[in-house]
């Protein structure tokens, strides 16, 4: 009885936020603001509480049997295609569920303050709740198709929230761009699912859920021959959702949405869905070295590419956005080198510190009367003390300073990259880590140190944010500081509890590749500890160096920054500032030719010209010509008709009588 009641909680974790979304969405302006806000926060809070209950239940179970499932109904049942509307939880998505509902709850609370004066207050919370619903469907979905439902659902919410202030056409365009770029990724995801389905369908017994993760894991041997293709296709989906090269372009634009949205969706939760999906499908990925290598390379490339762009951006949210892209690259790198658990660890710590940083930037923007350009900020340290101190903690965390959360996860990723033999990828990641520390300190310096460069009007309004906004900041700062300790590694005398918790998920399948990585780690344990110490020390020093340089240049030696801008005719700076002109390149390569083709060739030439003009009107023309010839005989003279009739009949009769 006890067990049953826990399982049924899974559906309520997902559905309660939907209830909030429905009430807020349907009643909208009719609902008083306080009620709407309270309702939205409560539903997510309940979800969080339920997640904790389920988590505790899992904790009480044996490590190998930590798995609960809740099937609501059959969704698609046709022939031997059977897909359930069902939810399941194991250590992996338990972590995700806690992160999503927990951070989600904090950001809901923060939004109470941040959105307090907005006209679309109720609509905002309806969307936010809908997002939690979709994200939890994604996370708790029992099969790949349910994951896809959530996947598309969060895409929709992202669209709705990015273009939330749709009065500005740019926001609307950014939302649309996000949705469409994600759809391109989904295309790959969809084909990947078809390939899985088509491979398995002939072998399934009736009633076995086709896309259920259990089924997939059970039949990895059948999927092995096509594993590489499947994994690469699924990874296309992940590049869309998790903003990897080449589909990352939507995420920086997505900052058009309200800042809590950037924090929740475009930093902490939704964008990590791709990483989660890959971790979820780890049993397939480990079968394909090629796919793993592609994931790792794309991850590392994205990490350094995005952090190089972040070096020169002036919009506070743009810096954080590219930082997010870069951090997602790290997570992908982790997955690619077979360290799925570490990838998820970084998902969690990143959620803490990046949500913190975004909310902090939101607090700054709020104080600066919606200004986002760091060039007119500065000197906010004393005016926004809570924001400043929490932001600083977030910065230390992302830079990987011991003992903040980022140190443990990032270091672990780099260590796994190194120890699995991917030394070049380690180098790339290492370089990017230094850049990360640098641009984050640049951000802090430009925002909080020095003199305030804003206009007097703005200056007079600068104030610390209300409690609804600062409390979440403080909570997140705490998490960013100590949240990484659950992954305290062995070589520092910890228990690496986080890895142990996820262990059953990632060693369950036929994890051939993963096992190799793992045993390699075990075998050279003595040699490795020394190496691990060295690398950890190096990266800690490197991070502090990055911070130091950033602090030095942007508080003491601004001339150095200017001289960099002028370096080589300003060309490198211009390229970075314009994000390597990737958007422009896509525009020129795909979008404009596509439109021109559609408009001039397909519509005007083929549709109107060839089909309608040539074929349809051509046929009509033939009829018309024949008609005009025959018309000559139709002169309206009755006696002419009579004569031709008579002559015709006579000739006919004569012919009959002489031919017979």
């Amino acid at each position, binding site marked *: 009885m006890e067990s049953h009641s826990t399982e049924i909680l899974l559906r309520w974790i997902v559905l309660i936020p939907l209830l909030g979304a429905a009430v807020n969405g349907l009643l909208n302006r009719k609902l008083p603001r306080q009620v709407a806000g309270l309702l939205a926060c409560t539903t997510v809070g309940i979800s969080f509480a339920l997640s904790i209950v389920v988590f505790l239940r899992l904790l009480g179970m044996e490590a190998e049997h930590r798995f609960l499932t809740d099937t609501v109904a059959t969704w698609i049942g046709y022939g031997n295609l059977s897909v359930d509307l069902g939810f399941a939880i194991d250590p992996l998505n338990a972590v995700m569920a806690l992160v999503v509902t927990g951070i989600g709850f904090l950001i809901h609370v923060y939004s109470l303050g941040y959105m307090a004066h907005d006209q679309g207050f109720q609509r905002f919370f309806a969307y936010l709740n809908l997002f939690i619903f979709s994200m939890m469907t994604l996370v708790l979905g029992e099969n790949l198709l349910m994951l896809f439902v959530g996947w598309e659902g969060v895409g929709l919410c992202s669209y709705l929230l990015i273009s939330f202030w749709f009065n500005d056409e740019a926001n609307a365009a950014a939302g649309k761009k996000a949705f469409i770029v994600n759809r391109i990724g989904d295309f790959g995801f969809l084909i990947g699912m078809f390939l899985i389905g088509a491979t398995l369908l002939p072998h399934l017994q009736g009633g076995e859920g086709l896309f259920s993760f259990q089924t997939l894991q059970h039949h990895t041997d059948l999927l092995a021959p096509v594993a590489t293709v499947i994994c690469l296709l699924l990874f296309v989906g992940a590049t869309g959702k998790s903003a990897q090269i080449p589909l990352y372009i939507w995420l920086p634009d997505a900052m058009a949405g309200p800042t809590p949205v950037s924090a929740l969706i475009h930093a902490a939760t939704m964008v990590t869905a791709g990483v989660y999906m890959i971790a979820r499908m780890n049993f397939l990925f480990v079968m394909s070295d090629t796919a793993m290598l592609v994931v790792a390379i794309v991850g590392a490339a994205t990490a350094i590419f995005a952090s190089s762009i972040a070096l020169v951006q002036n919009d506070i949210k743009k810096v954080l956005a590219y930082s997010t892209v870069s951090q997602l690259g790290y997570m992908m790198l982790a997955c690619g080198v077979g360290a799925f658990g570490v990838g998820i660890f970084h998902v969690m710590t990143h959620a803490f510190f990046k949500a913190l940083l975004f909310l902090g930037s939101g607090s700054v923007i709020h104080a600066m009367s919606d200004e986002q350009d760091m060039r007119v900020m500065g000197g906010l340290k004393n005016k926004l003390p809570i924001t400043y101190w929490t932001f600083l903690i977030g910065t230390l965390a992302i830079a990987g300073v011991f003992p903040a959360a980022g140190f443990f996860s990032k270091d672990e990723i780099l260590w796994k990259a190194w120890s699995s033999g991917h030394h070049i990828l380690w180098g790339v990641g290492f370089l990017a880590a230094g850049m990360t520390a640098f641009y984050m300190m640049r951000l802090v310096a430009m925002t909080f140190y020095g003199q305030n460069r804003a206009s007097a009007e703005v200056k007079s309004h600068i104030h610390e944010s209300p409690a609804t906004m600062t409390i979440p900041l403080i909570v997140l700062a705490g998490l960013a500081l100590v949240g990484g300790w659950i992954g305290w590694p062995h070589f520092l005398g910890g228990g690496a509890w986080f890895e142990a918790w996820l262990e059953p998920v990632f060693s369950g399948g036929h994890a051939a590749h993963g096992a190799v990585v793992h045993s390699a780690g075990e075998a050279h344990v003595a040699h490795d500890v020394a190496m691990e110490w060295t690398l950890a020390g190096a990266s800690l020093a490197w991070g502090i160096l990055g911070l130091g340089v950033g602090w030095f240049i942007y508080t003491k030696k601004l001339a150095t920054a200017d001289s960099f801008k002028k370096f080589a005719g300003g060309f490198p700076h211009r390229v970075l500032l314009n994000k390597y002109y990737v958007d422009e390149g896509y525009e020129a390569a795909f979008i404009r030719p596509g439109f021109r083709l559609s408009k001039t060739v397909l519509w005007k030439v083929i549709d109107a010209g060839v089909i309608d003009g040539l074929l349809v009107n051509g046929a009509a023309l033939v009829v018309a010509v024949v008609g005009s010839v025959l018309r000559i005989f*139709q*002169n*309206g*003279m*009755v*006696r002419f008709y*009579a*004569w031709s009739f*008579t002559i015709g009949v006579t000739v006919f009769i004569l012919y009959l009588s002489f031919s017979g």
Partner: protein
Amino acid sequence: MEITLSHYLLLAGAVFTTGMVGFVIRRNAIVMLMCVELMLSSTNIVFAAFSRFHGNADGHVFVLMNFAVAAAEAAIGLAILVEIFRRRRTVNVDDFKTLME
């Protein structure tokens, strides 16, 4: 002299030719209509004659049917002509070219 089938056919042929020639050469629409009636009558004669000589009633049936058709045709034709005369003050078919439209 015994009256044979050929006599009937000859009579019918004569009536038909009269009607046909009249239809072709006359311009007065009423006369043309009468000529059409003549041609119909000639077929009636043929039907009746064959019916008599073959000893079954099929031909008679057609004759009756023909009467009905002829009556209807004459009625409609005359009605049209009356209408045309009201508008045009003529029944000369050479003056009507609106059929072309």
